[in-house]
């Protein structure tokens, strides 16, 4: 037996090891249909029975789980849900077929929704459908899942999740699924690791007995070799101990062992990244990547769409500073219709601010939306890939022109501070030459441009090291320039979350780090151990 490695998408962090429980839903019809009146009565009774079962489950739950079950009750109590099924029954259809057909049509409507949140409700509708079918067909409820199991399935319903005892570990592996589903929200809330999008889980002979789940990386190993298992168990015990300590301190300020207060900001791509988090875990948002707004499928976003998104993020931050980076397309982030195809070296081509200045109509729209959003909180605007001061000056002139135009029309707006991302060595070496409102060091690109080594080329990956003295010297120069000019400086690349570099980065004089939300607890715990 050889171990099998699969990679999916992380939906809930954490590590787990346990026996594999393969979920299959068998809801075969085992009944003889009666006349339409009997069938209608049977469906009515099954719907009422399902509603009562859910109401009993709600009694035992609270918070998010209770809300989700209440949604299912509200749907079941609404006559609109089953009216099509009763109509089909009156023309002779058996109750279970009629119900299944109507619910499957409803589910198809959700599955085709554009909005991820509505697609993610498929699980709830399937749950409703199957609970009523079980009532109709008299099938025994699916066998209870033993606590501590790794559930492997195409998808899993919220009520199955809630009915499972997660107190002694376990995890969820889904062939399909979504990190926005109710189950994923529940899994995150309960600390159950979950990986979705693993693709078809088909076993050649029989299903695997044991699985190792890494909910941080979104990976799973089935039937591990003893050595793989031993290493994983070691990682787990270390991680568990660290997490217990870190979680306790997540909402507290980050303070080094020698008493320095470090500002912790978040890197996000969309409001969804933080929507279910308490803003108290951070001191603000250090980087909002706006590329997601410009994904090809939707075309270029209009001013109103951008304004609404920016504004919602500011609302979430409750007055804490929010740094939004203007479109950073190009390089490894092509956007069709905007970026240039076929550049011989896209990382040295028309990307970031260069592209924005070359396509001012797209850039001005974004600046206008940002200036309007600035009224609603503490907004800062950051320009990516700046190499020379004239780029900042040209961007500033464009921003000023848009603000003037908005004011002339009587539209509420404010002037956000305009800062630069320091990721080109030229900008780091001469940081003091820029009249920037603030600096934010983009350590990923700064490292690859300084070391002339890409992260995704394995043969040179060891050169791509932010801890290299050359890169650290550029960081220190930037920090010094910021201090001399009396403006803020932060670091928002992956290095900020690399706890093996924390001490080194703080030694350059940095006092602000920006990381993804999942990294906050660990970073704060590491900072607490830093002595000069």
């Amino acid at each position, binding site marked *: 037996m050889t171990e099998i490695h699969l990679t999916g998408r992380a939906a809930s962090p954490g590590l787990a090891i346990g026996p594999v429980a393969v979920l299959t839903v068998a809801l075969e019809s085992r009944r003889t249909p009666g006349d339409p009146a009997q069938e209608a009565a049977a469906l009515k009774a099954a719907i009422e029975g399902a509603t009562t079962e859910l109401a009993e489950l709600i009694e035992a739950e609270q918070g998010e789980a209770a809300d989700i079950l209440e949604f299912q009750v509200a749907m079941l109590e609404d006559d609109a849900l089953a009216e099509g099924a009763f109509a089909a029954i009156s023309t002779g259809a058996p109750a279970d077929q009629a119900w299944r057909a109507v619910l499957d049509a409803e589910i198809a409507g959700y599955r085709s929704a554009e909005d991820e949140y509505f697609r993610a409700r498929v699980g709830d509708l399937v749950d409703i459908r199957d609970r009523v079918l079980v009532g109709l067909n008299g099938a025994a409820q699916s066998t209870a899942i033993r606590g501590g199991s790794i559930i492997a399935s195409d998808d899993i319903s919220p009520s199955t999740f809630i009915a499972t005892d997660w107190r002694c570990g376990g995890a969820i592996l889904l062939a399909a699924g979504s990190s926005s589903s109710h189950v994923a929200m529940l899994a995150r809330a309960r600390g159950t690791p979950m990986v979705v999008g693993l693709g078809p889980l088909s076993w050649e002979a029989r299903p695997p007995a044991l699985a190792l789940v890494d909910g941080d990386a979104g990976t799973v190993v089935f039937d591990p070799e003893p050595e793989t298992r031993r290493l994983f168990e070691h990682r787990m015990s270390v991680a568990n101990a660290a997490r217990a300590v870190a979680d306790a301190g997540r909402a507290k300020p980050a303070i080094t062992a020698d008493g320095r207060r470090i500002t912790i900001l978040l890197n996000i791509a969309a409001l969804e990244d933080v929507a279910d988090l308490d803003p108290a875990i951070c001191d603000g948002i250090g980087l909002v990547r706006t590329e997601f707004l410009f994904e090809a499928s939707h075309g270029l976003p209009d001013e109103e769409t951008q304004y609404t*998104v920016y504004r919602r993020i500011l609302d979430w931050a409750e007055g804490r500073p929010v740094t939004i980076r203007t479109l950073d397309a190009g390089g490894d982030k092509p956007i069709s219709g905007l970026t240039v195809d076929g550049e011989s070296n896209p990382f040295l081509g028309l990307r970031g601010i260069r592209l924005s200045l070359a396509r001012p109509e797209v850039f001005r729209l974004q600046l206008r939306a940002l200036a309007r959003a600035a009224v609603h909180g503490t907004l800062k605007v950051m320009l990516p890939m700046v190499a020379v001061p004239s780029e900042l000056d040209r961007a500033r002139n464009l921003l000023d022109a848009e603000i003037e135009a908005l004011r002339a029309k009587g539209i509420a707006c404010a002037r956000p501070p305009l800062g630069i991302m320091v990721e080109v060595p030229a900008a780091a070496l001469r940081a003091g030459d820029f009249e920037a409102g603030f600096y934010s060091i983009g350590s990923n690109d700064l490292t690859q441009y300084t070391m002339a080594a890409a992260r995704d080329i394995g043969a040179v990956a060891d050169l791509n090291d932010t801890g290299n003295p050359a890169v650290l010297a550029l960081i220190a120069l930037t920090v010094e320039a910021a201090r001399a000019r009396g403006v803020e400086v932060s670091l928002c690349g992956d290095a900020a979350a690399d706890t093996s570099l924390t001490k080194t980065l703080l030694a350059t004089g940095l006092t602000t780090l920006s990381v993804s939300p999942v990294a906050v607890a660990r970073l704060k715990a590491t900072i607490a151990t830093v002595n000069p």
Partner: protein
Amino acid sequence: MHDVNASRASKTSVPLTASAVLVNPVGLHARPSVKLTQCAKGFAATIEIALAPDGPWTDAKSPVKVMRVKAPQGAMLYFRVAGSDGDAALAAVLALVHDGFGEA
């Protein structure tokens, strides 16, 4: 945030209309829909919602139908209300939207 153009008519026969932007993070989905329908059911007036000022209109008391509207975050939601307690009903549903359904 909240762009209410309540047009008032004499007494009850002409429906009241208003609109508001969905400011809560995820649009009119599971929990917001339940809250909206629960609120709407507390009034005798007929309450309908739409994504455009001229409809199509959806019964705001049916969670199944409200979910079918799939109103995303940032959408402008239009209300049409008719009935003796229409004033209070409109104020209540608008307050709910304005408040982000308590989840903003």
